[in-house]
């Protein structure tokens, strides 16, 4: 029996096990929306902006590991997805985005609400498709889900002309996909793995740098086994948080521009870097020529283009992180002589000395609310058992620094693109996937306004997301740079009186709004919010002057850091750096 493209679409999603998607309707996708109207097993969450839909699907994907699915209309609906798609692309998040398109016969005619979304998203999708014939639809959807998840994951877009959704075809869903042009390498080269194991065994000052690939490939267990067996300290990139327990004795916390002193120091003094599922982003390496000057580098990544892109590598291993670590652990145990106990002791002692020399700190005695205090309190009250999303700016960095992520997929943050407005819809997506979990968006007063309309989505769908706004009345991170590098000329970063009353906004949307203006109010507000089974905005009026430390000025070596304790002194040092 032949069925319509709209029906094929729905059948395909069911075959893929999709339960939820996010979207927004419009003219050319009406046939699909009409079919969805009666569906019980396939729920579409209507967001209030297409960008919100894509971030929500992204948060859903990061929290679950399953691909996020989006359905929007053509033209403006499609173009509104671009920031969300680029965000997912930079962080390798699997998603399938369906955009409506004008009927095939009108394509190229500048038809009403026509946009060349396949052309527009070509550089920010892993792959994209325009379906011209309903006969191809099922095959394309199958391929799209496969490509989104295979190898290094990423967003895939499918453009669906209106007539394709009404034309009929026999529905046959392919059992499997085989693409002669796309066969990622999953198994690492055994010889290289053996070499790596020998190097690890002989290293005196080894450090693991764990990236988002650890989380994406589900390799946390293997990583922990590896680190513990060979007594290897672990630092994480922003994307790697949660890939290794932040509270583990071997954890050095995050490295890079706002990394810990001891993480950055360990890199600079290391004789062996074991880079796992990470890509040496400039926020991680700082000045590239001065990065890890004494270290040999082992680099494990599924994407060959990540290897030798910006740093020299001694042992490249292309493969799935989980698979490679499984073999590596076996080789370490069976084929390599255990000889590192003594050397590691000396290295551990050195790392501890650095930990003591410069612990993560801030002014804990202040009566004004310090943003770091709010994050620490969230950690304390939740005991780390929460999914944390973030916006972008200082809020994001403090959320990374002062909360310890012990489990993968509990940290949702736009790392590569740094998209303000990401966190709130992402939290909504994660909450949909885990209705009983505490999901918190740690936000800035600037960022939250970029997708604040999604409060309606949270309220109507009874998704009790908590938003902790670190309200400094500034575009704080930019202000920080202006303070440090632009003689305190705060061009267009002072929001001040124009910051809306977030409590009233929450109430206007029929959510709950709470406010803390003094330190003593922080804990009660958090406790109250966590006890309410509805979406809550918490407005924490924080010290506007607070800056994120440590900080490596852009372009400096990563051990050339400015520190909290010496704001005054370090500002002088900064002038010397410039």
């Amino acid at each position, binding site marked *: 029996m032949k069925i319509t493209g709209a029906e094929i679409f729905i059948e395909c999603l069911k075959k893929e096990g999709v339960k939820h998607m996010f979207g927004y309707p419009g003219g050319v996708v009406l046939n699909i929306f009409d079919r969805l109207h009666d569906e019980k097993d396939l729920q579409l969450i209507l967001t209030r902006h297409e960008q919100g839909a894509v971030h929500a699907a992204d948060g859903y994907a990061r929290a679950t590991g399953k691909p996020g699915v989006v359905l929007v209309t053509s033209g403006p609906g499609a173009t509104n997805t671009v920031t969300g798609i680029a965000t997912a692309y930079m962080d390798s998040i699997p998603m399938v985005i369906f955009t409506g398109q004008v009927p095939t016969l009108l394509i190229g005619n500048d038809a009403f609400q026509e946009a060349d979304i396949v052309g527009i998203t070509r*550089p920010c999708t892993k792959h994209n498709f325009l379906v011209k014939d309903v006969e191809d639809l099922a095959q394309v959807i199958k391929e799209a889900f496969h490509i989104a998840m295979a190898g290094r994951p990423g967003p895939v877009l499918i453009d669906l002309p209106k007539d394709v959704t009404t034309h009929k075809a026999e529905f046959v869903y392919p059992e499997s996909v085989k693409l002669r042009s796309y066969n990622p390498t999953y198994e690492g080269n055994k010889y290289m793995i053996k070499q790596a194991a020998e190097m690890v065994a002989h290293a005196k000052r080894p450090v693991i740098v764990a990236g988002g690939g650890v989380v994406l490939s589900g390799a946390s267990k293997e990583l922990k086994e590896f680190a513990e067996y060979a007594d290897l300290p672990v630092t994480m990139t922003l994307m790697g948080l949660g890939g290794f327990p932040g509270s583990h004795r071997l954890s050095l916390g995050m490295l890079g521009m706002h990394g810990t002193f001891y993480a950055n120091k360990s890199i600079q003094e290391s004789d062996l870097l074991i880079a796992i599922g990470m890509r040496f982003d400039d926020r991680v390496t700082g000045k590239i020529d001065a990065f890890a000057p004494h270290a040999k580098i082992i680099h494990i990544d599924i994407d060959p283009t990540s290897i030798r892109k910006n740093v020299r590598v001694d042992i490249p291993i292309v493969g799935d992180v989980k698979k490679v670590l499984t073999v590596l652990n076996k080789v370490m145990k069976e084929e390599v002589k255990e000889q590192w106990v003594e050397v590691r002791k000396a290295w551990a002692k050195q790392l501890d000395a650095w930990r003591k020399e410069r612990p993560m700190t801030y002014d804990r005695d202040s009566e004004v609310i310090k943003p770091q205090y709010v994050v620490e309190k969230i950690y304390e009250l939740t005991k780390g058992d929460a999914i944390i999303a973030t916006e972008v700016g200082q809020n994001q960095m403090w959320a990374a620094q002062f909360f310890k992520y012990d489990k993968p997929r509990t940290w949702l943050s736009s790392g590569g693109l740094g998209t303000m407005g990401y966190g709130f819809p992402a939290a909504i997506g994660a909450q949909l996937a885990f209705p009983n979990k505490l999901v918190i968006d740690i936000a800035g007063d600037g960022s939250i306004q970029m997708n604040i309309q999604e409060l309606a989505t949270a309220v109507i769908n009874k998704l009790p997301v908590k938003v902790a706004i670190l309200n400094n009345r500034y575009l704080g991170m930019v202000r920080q740079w202006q303070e440090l590098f632009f003689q305190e000329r705060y061009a267009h970063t002072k929001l001040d009186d124009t910051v809306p009353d977030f409590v009233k906004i929450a109430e206007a949307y029929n959510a709950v709004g709470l406010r803390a203006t003094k330190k003593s109010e922080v804990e009660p507000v958090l406790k109250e919010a966590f006890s309410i089974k509805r979406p809550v905005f918490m407005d924490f009026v924080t010290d506007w002057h607070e800056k994120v430390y440590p900080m490596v000025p852009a372009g400096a070596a990563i051990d050339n850091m400015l520190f909290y304790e010496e704001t005054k002194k370090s500002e002088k040092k900064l002038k010397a750096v410039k």
Partner: protein
Amino acid sequence: MRHTISVLVENKFGVLSRISGLFSGRGYNIESLSVNETTDPQVSVMTIVTTGDDWIIEQITKQLNKLIDVIKVVDMTELDHVEREMVLIKVSPRQEDKAEVLRLAEIFRGRVVDSSQKTYTIEITGEEKKIEAIVELLRPMGIKEFVRTGKIAIAREGIKKS
């Protein structure tokens, strides 16, 4: 250094812009690009001439391979291979140079494919150096215009460059 890279691609809608977009988006240089059919109608071959140091060329080949529609990437420069290019040159020589133009065409194994009272159009096939040489020789005689196909390349059978 200059490299000739041969890329086998699925002959699908938009594949050329995926490739050219990769080069422009990452700031790689394309000196010439030609796209052709192969024996398999579903597969096209692109011959790309590009420049860059070893790091860049390594990235270019890896990035090309990463594109979903790319089946195979071969850096011809690493293999023993044959390269050819064709040029069509329209010259309008003075009366006294006409014989010389025809003589040059013959030396270069060219063919006159069109002529008018004032012009000859000559077709020449060969390696880049040969094409450049004929263009230089004809230039003083008055080249009106010329068009080059860009390079195509094919590996020699069974021989690997050491």
